[in-house]
């Protein structure tokens, strides 16, 4: 399918019940699609709702209105209304996510953290470890760290573990939440290279990049999130 991700008229607000039920609108009428082999970047100032959109696409935030359609196992699935079991299945096989921060699990080694998405999809552990080593090597994570749990790693080291974990699978859709925020120039280049390779493989990517250099290098298109500001009346 040429358009693996379609977001249609999505709205989201937070209702703060502990603050007297005030309603904080986040975005309204969000509509865009991402084609295979394309990297679309969500643009706009902080607070415009970029992260919220990414989290809705991953099923991490609920959706008040609208549809988020992905092709999953040959069928179209609406993530806005899908049950938890379907969302988990979509995450395992269709939508990958590189989050901004690594949620570390104590005692699990960096290599296992990276290999886990492949193991979950049934790849043999040895092969998954080989792929994980290759990626961590490319991202210049010192080999002596691979067998350690990432809890004590620096921000940049944790982020590289996170990137490797997100890029190890061949999910048709990949979400990138500031994957280069705490990386040095060398490793930013590595990530740009990884994104280029994903494009050639036909992965549809949707990302947030605050770093202008990286954004210019990878973005095929900027989606202006301010156009979806909640409260704004659609023309």
């Amino acid at each position, binding site marked *: 399918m040429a358009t693996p991700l379609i977001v249609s008229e999505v709205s989201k607000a*937070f209702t703060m*019940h*502990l603050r007297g039920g005030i309603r904080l609108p986040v975005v309204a009428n969000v509509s865009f699609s991402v084609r295979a082999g394309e990297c679309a970047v969500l643009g706009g100032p902080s607070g415009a709702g970029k992260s919220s959109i990414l989290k809705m696409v991953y099923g*991490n*935030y609920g959706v008040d209105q609208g549809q988020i359609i992905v092709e999953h196992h040959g069928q179209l699935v609406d993530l806005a209304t899908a049950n938890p*079991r379907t*969302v988990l299945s979509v995450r395992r096989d269709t939508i990958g996510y590189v989050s901004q921060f690594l949620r570390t*699990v*104590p005692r699990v080694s960096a290599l296992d953290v990276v290999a886990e998405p492949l193991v979950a999809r049934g790849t043999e552990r040895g092969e998954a470890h080989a792929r994980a080593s290759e990626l961590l090597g490319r991202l210049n994570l010192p080999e002596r760290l691979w067998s350690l749990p990432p809890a004590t790693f620096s921000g940049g080291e944790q982020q590289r573990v996170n990137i490797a974990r997100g890029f190890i699978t061949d999910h048709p859709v990949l979400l990138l939440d500031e994957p280069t925020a705490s990386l040095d120039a060398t490793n930013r280049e590595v990530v740009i290279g990884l994104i280029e390779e994903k494009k050639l493989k036909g992965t549809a990517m949707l990302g947030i990049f605050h770093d202008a250099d990286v954004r210019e290098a990878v973005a095929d298109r900027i989606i202006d999130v301010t156009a979806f500001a909640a409260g704004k009346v659609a023309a």
Partner: protein
Amino acid sequence: MTDEPLLRVTALSKYYGSRIGCEDISFDLWPGEVLAIVGESGSGKTTLLNCLSTRLLPTSGTASYRMRDGQWRDLYRMSEAERRFLMRTDWGFVHQNPADGLRMTVSAGANVGERLMAIGDRHYGNIRATAVDWLGRVEIDEERIDDEPRAFSGGMRQRLQIARNLVTGPRLVFMDEPTGGLDVSVQARLLDLLRGLVTDLGLAAIVVTHDLAVARLLSQRMMVMKDGHVVEAGLTDRVLDDPRAPYTQLLVSSILQV
């Protein structure tokens, strides 16, 4: 992956006289899925767990379980003997207090071996070898196999209780505040261990906890209970990161940041 749930719960209610224990609870649990039930004391989560594990009979509603032969059975219409057999073989129950799930005056090895004997294993050598293997998997030194759990620390007792439950290869494990009475550092180790075992063995589990971090680490799906009702349910990270019910928002915002 199978396309049928393991457990089907429909409109389950339990009343203590006119007081609600839990009311109108419905959900499906799938093989390999971990469901967390969270809520404060008195929310009905333990009542629900006890009904599901047939330690308590509900006032109304049904719960059906898919047996190993693929047959669906109504848990509350089984004979006592059938239920006991299920409890000993295909199910596990991890109590908050290990003393409730262990026999404190027989050796650690016998605690693990007893469940094997209950399913007909009679070969002493095999039983002991399996017990040693399981003690290793829950990180208890083989040298301690002949010690009684009375001589174990709280964390070790809890790990032993887990080994005792998992040795028969159950498909469904109930856990009631599995890390409840433990020191924080011991809790973390136990959680890691549980997480690894649940993933490796593909267990389905229902975990009652008041600790949202436990729910986050162990479960894929959660139900939030208050006053006997489910006030919010869904994917664990969705419920915790985008809580919608007023009570869930209160719970999530009450976590102390360290």
